[in-house]
């Protein structure tokens, strides 16, 4: 058991190391990404460029530069941005993380609840008009670009119907921390939550329905019915319980990617200063310290989420527990 945990930890560190080296090389080896030129500005004299090159240590060998960067990112945590007036990047990421977590966490609650409802109802009403309508709606959800949906949601709730009773409660765009009050926090996020959830409701609802329909042909579902259980109980305790295993593995991956910056389009459209937007800013400015910090944060999240998914696997599937 301890050996497995240690091995897992070792793998994690190795993966994080690999990603950091990769990102470092990509943004140093790509033409046009020379950080000296960026910091120095457009019409800097050769002397200034040389001074900056020395000051920031760009004239040192790459491995030393890499180690120096890692040291300032993880140990001293005073890594400063190249462009943004030398803003410290670690606190910047720490400020952005709760925004992204709030956005993705709330959306996840919505999409898991609604998609389980939709998937189960559609599977129970298999072949009916209701089933087809729900699955078609799911397909529409998958087909909508999220940034456009956000724009339209803004148009409706911020402008066209903002004065109507339905959306008069919608506050202006932006993020309010949870410490400022539950309602202030939630009301700013409800529309972004729903917008982000639409794609995943469609996706998960369809996947769950397909899984449940496949499960309903299984022998154990027939056994459960032969036991004289109610249809609902058969569906929930045998069908859904078994299908949840794939559901959870999908969820772990998606959740980690979104928390790791995958929700940037939603963040951009709704003016939320989350990690995705921060990464995007870093990329646009080729701000290597910022990119490095956000990517490492994202990688940590993906790796941690994978570990959590594995844990859930153990809880949900006894066959995995026995290493089968």
């Amino acid at each position, binding site marked *: 058991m301890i050996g497995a945990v240690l091995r897992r930890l070792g793998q994690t560190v190795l993966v994080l190391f690999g990603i950091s080296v990769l990102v470092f090389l990509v943004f140093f080896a790509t033409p046009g990404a020379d950080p000296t030129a960026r910091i120095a500005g457009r019409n800097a004299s050769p002397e200034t460029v040389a001074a900056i090159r020395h000051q920031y240590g760009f004239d040192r060998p790459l491995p030393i530069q890499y180690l120096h960067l890692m040291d300032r990112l993880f140990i001293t945590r005073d890594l400063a941005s190249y462009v943004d007036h030398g803003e410290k990047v670690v606190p910047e990421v720490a400020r952005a993380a709760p925004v992204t977590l709030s956005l993705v966490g709330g959306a996840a609650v919505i999409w898991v609840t609604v998609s389980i409802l939709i998937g189960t109802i559609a599977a129970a009403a*298999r*072949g009916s008009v209701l089933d087809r309508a729900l699955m078609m709606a799911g397909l529409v959800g998958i087909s909508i670009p999220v940034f456009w949906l956000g724009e339209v949601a803004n148009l409706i709730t911020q402008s066209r119907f903002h004065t109507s009773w339905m959306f008069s409660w919608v506050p202006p765009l932006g993020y309010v921390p949870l410490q400022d009050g539950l309602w202030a926090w939630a009301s700013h996020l409800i529309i972004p939550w729903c917008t982000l959830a639409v794609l995943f409701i469609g996706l998960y609802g369809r996947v769950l329905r397909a899984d449940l329909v496949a499960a309903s042909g*299984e*022998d*154990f579902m*027939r*056994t*459960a*019915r*032969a*036991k*004289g*259980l*109610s*249809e609902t*109980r058969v569906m929930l*305790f*045998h069908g859904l*319980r*078994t299908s949840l*295993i794939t559901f959870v593995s999908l969820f772990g991956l998606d959740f980690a990617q979104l928390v790791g910056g995958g929700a940037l389009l939603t963040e951009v459209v709704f003016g939320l200063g989350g990690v995705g937007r921060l990464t995007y800013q870093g990329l646009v400015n080729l701000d290597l310290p910022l990119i490095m910090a956000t990517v490492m944060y994202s990688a940590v999240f993906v790796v941690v989420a994978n570990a959590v998914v594995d844990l859930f696997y153990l809880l*949900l*599937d*006894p*066959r995995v527990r*026995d290493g*089968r």
Partner: protein
Amino acid sequence: MDADAPLLAVDNLTITLPAGRGRTVDIVENVSFRLDGAEIMGLVGESGSGKSMSALAIMGLIDAPGARIAGSIRFRGRELIGLDRRALRALRGAEIAMIFQDPMTALTPVHTVGWQIDEQLRAHQPLSRAGARARTVELLGEMGVPDPRRAADRYPHQLSGGLRQRAMIAMALSCNPSLLIADEPTTALDVTVQAQILDLLRRLRQDFGSSILLITHDMGVVAETCDRTTVLYSGNVAEHGPTDALFRQPAHPYTAALLDSIPPLRGTRPRRLPSIPGAPPAPSARPPGCPFQPRCAYGHVACETRPSLLPIGAQQVACVLPAEGRALPPRAVLSA
């Protein structure tokens, strides 16, 4: 409830499934049989003969969209076809229970065996969690599961095939059903385990007074276990009768051919086992006359019309030969 009524009486059961593009196909045609208390009856036939379909119809478990079930299935005189879902559910698992062929796939993989037996007990009886578990452990012990307390906390994949099937039987018997339907209960098991399970089924009648409808394709299993036997061929009853009589003097050419294809235990071995030429017809391409006629060595003009079940001695047979005075001779070798 009618005290004189047989435990189970199936009359003219016809199961029709949609076959696409508005066509339908009769999987089972006019099948009738009955089962009395404390009796084991074998329902024999090759795959596709409609034996499992008939069993599922008794359980009310045919849920294919567009399936139609006609005829009558009476349990203790009570009609099951058209019975409302709630009443049927109360019967299922409590009065009529079923065990399935493959105990690996027939148990839900994510729950412990004990949990699944508890679930059935508590669905039909007002038992506490602890009470249900105590009964479960007791049942598992009665089914010959060693260390039943620990076995109850195991997941299906952690048990051997034989133990899984014992757990399955324990689950089916948990509410003392008066009828147990066993659908090929030994097919997926090793030969030695097979014998143990059959032994267990035979003891159920003595210990619990249950009747068993044993569905199988294995004539050997029938000979060992069943009081009476019904032979199905292509969705129709071919022959019906006490197992002894049926094995001594089969009246239907199909039964005779089935018995001939079992290798004899004694005497000289035939150079080549006799086999039935051809294959059973697809339900959609069943001939209008006797369904066995295309493969029958005795087929003639009279077989062009569908024969009805005629009594001959203790047996009933859907064949014109006995009526024509050309009944098949008794079998020379007694198998098993």
